[in-house]
């Protein structure tokens, strides 16, 4: 078992004919992912990296029993693509695309709930279950199977940390890049729930960053509900204060959102926080 994605997942790539879509289809196939179809309006009937392309996601479902989608289409078309995937009955939708207007996200994420679909992202590196499958854009070679669940809001920083983990002997059950946008489909807390429930995961790594209150909420959740050891890293201790949504934003966020607040929340929940990214491996050694 793993979280969300296994070797049995049947993936359709939306936007497979684009440069990114094609490149990562190859990489996902090489990793062993069952990429069963691509979709690209008007390009139905062609093949990309040996994968049959359909005009619609529904066809990919009907003909190839796709049950998960990864989206590479440009931002202006992502809402449409995400809803198409949900309406076709897919229960896992990974959105790599960045710079999506958040008023679009504010529509398709609540809508996903009505359809019982899990959205990962947008603006995320995807999910990877080492030795099983990858739906994402992360460099495959730094991952190794293991019992650590990884949850991260960032992309390259995750690679940095995972690389250190792998070198330190801490393989990963699944690594979920939840995405760096203000509005995301699956947040830190929800990803924690999944890993807490996953039998293969014995330890959990949370990579957070400043802005929002996701880490504070996650810490409170860990304190109450997570029995597995958790270690964390928080980026942005010396970053300039992020833009604040005026006075209204100050009300929502209160004193939270800063690196200090997040580190304190983790510490209060008994979660050690690494000073350097590479220290995550050390902290795992102490769990």
């Amino acid at each position, binding site marked *: 078992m793993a979280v969300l994605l296994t070797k049995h997942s049947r993936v359709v790539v939306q936007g497979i004919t684009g440069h990114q879509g094609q490149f990562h289809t190859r990489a996902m196939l090489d990793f062993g992912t069952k990429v069963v179809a691509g979709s690209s309006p008007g390009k139905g009937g062609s093949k990309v990296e040996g994968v049959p392309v359909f005009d619609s996601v529904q066809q990919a479902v009907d003909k190839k029993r796709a049950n998960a989608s990864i989206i590479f289409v440009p931002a202006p078309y992502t809402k449409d693509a995400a809803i198409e995937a949900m309406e076709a009955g897919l229960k896992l939708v990974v959105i790599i695309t960045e710079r999506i207007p*958040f008023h679009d996200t504010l529509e398709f994420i609540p809508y996903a709930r009505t359809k019982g679909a899990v959205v990962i992202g947008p603006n995320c590196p995807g999910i990877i279950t080492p030795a099983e499958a990858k739906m994402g854009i992360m460099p495959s070679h730094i991952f190794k199977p293991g019992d650590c669940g990884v949850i991260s809001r960032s992309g390259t920083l995750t690679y940095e940390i995972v690389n250190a983990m792998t070198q330190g002997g801490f393989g990963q059950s699944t690594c979920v890049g939840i995405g760096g946008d203000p509005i995301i489909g699956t947040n830190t807390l929800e990803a924690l729930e999944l890993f807490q429930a996953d039998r293969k995961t014995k330890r959990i790594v949370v990579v957070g960053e400043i802005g929002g209150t996701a880490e504070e909420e996650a810490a409170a959740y860990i304190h109450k509900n997570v029995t597995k050891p958790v270690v964390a890293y928080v980026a942005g201790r010396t970053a300039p204060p992020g833009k604040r949504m005026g006075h209204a934003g100050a009300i929502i966020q209160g004193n939270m959102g800063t690196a200090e607040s997040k580190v304190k929340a983790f510490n209060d929940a008994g979660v050690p926080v690494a000073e350097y990214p590479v220290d995550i491996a050390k902290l795992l050694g102490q769990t």
Partner: protein
Amino acid sequence: MKFLEYKAKAIFAKYGIPVPRGVVAARPEEIHDPPLPCMVKAQVLVGGRGKAGGIKPAATIEEAHAIASQILGMDIKGYKVKTVYLEQRLDIEKELYLSFTIDRSAREPLLIASAMGGMEIETVPHDQLFMQHIPTLIGIQPYVLRSMTKRLGLADHLGEQVEDIARKAYALFRKEDAELVEINPLVVTKGGKVIAGDAKLVVDDNAEYRHLEYAKLDQDRTALEEEAHEKGITFIQLDGDIGVIANGAGLTMATLDVLNLKGGKGGTFLDLGGTDDPDKVAQAFELLIKAKPSVILLNIFGGITKADTVALGVKKALEVMHADVPVVARIKGVNEDAAKQILRDIGMHPAETMEEAAELAVQVKRGGV
């Protein structure tokens, strides 16, 4: 995209939200027919104008000219006042607060209203705030507005106006891709009219393509940041002296953090993103060099990014700019050995890890290398 008050009010008016009459001027001699008596208001993208002397009353046209002359050119928290807005003076009975923004945790828009407007709303006690999430799938419903005006303790004829304004502000919030619509104060006049005394509007940068008419707005950016924005590069100027460039926002932040732990201080936050196009890398480096750092710290972890083409971009930028700023570079990625060689060839300092790179950057700055 942030809006100056007068531009925000023009959009409010488009949505039917009552705003005072006003005229805008960049020079005193442009002021012809201001509504009198009026308030002369500095137009800057920063709060606290009033306290800083950026808002003053004028009763006559002569007074308006004189005050506009004072305010234009003022420096308010680092922002130069380029325009003033001369606005009909309101007979204020009461000041309310109303805003729509997003709550990231709830993943829904949030309506905030208060009977205690006209002050910094975050200083208002929480029990004086009406807060309600608005589900985007179904929109703002009458019962929400009723509960709001009830909590604000408004009489019916005022409540109806405030409900109408809230409905329109929500429509604006959604249709204009706003991050923030804030009216503080929302003025109740002695005559029993409700009117937006101030107007704050911030529109999602990512939605710029749907609102091209806003793309040319003056923004809260330095000249270099503006140049970066035009080139599509995420670049923020900081107050340290080591120019930090990395790929990915999280990694860039982490690089700044590690640098700090090693005793250095970042002077830029430059996120290269996923690119390995040498021209784009060169562009980013040019910006960085213009920021005049004493050392540049480059940190790339690119599983897929081609390290050698990144290195070529760095080389090109340094050549074009005739720059002799020292560069400490850590590049992981495809062809990283070739990359290291290119960097060494031009006299740079390659490092294996970000910790090592940060340490090296601090040493180089101190002249230790």
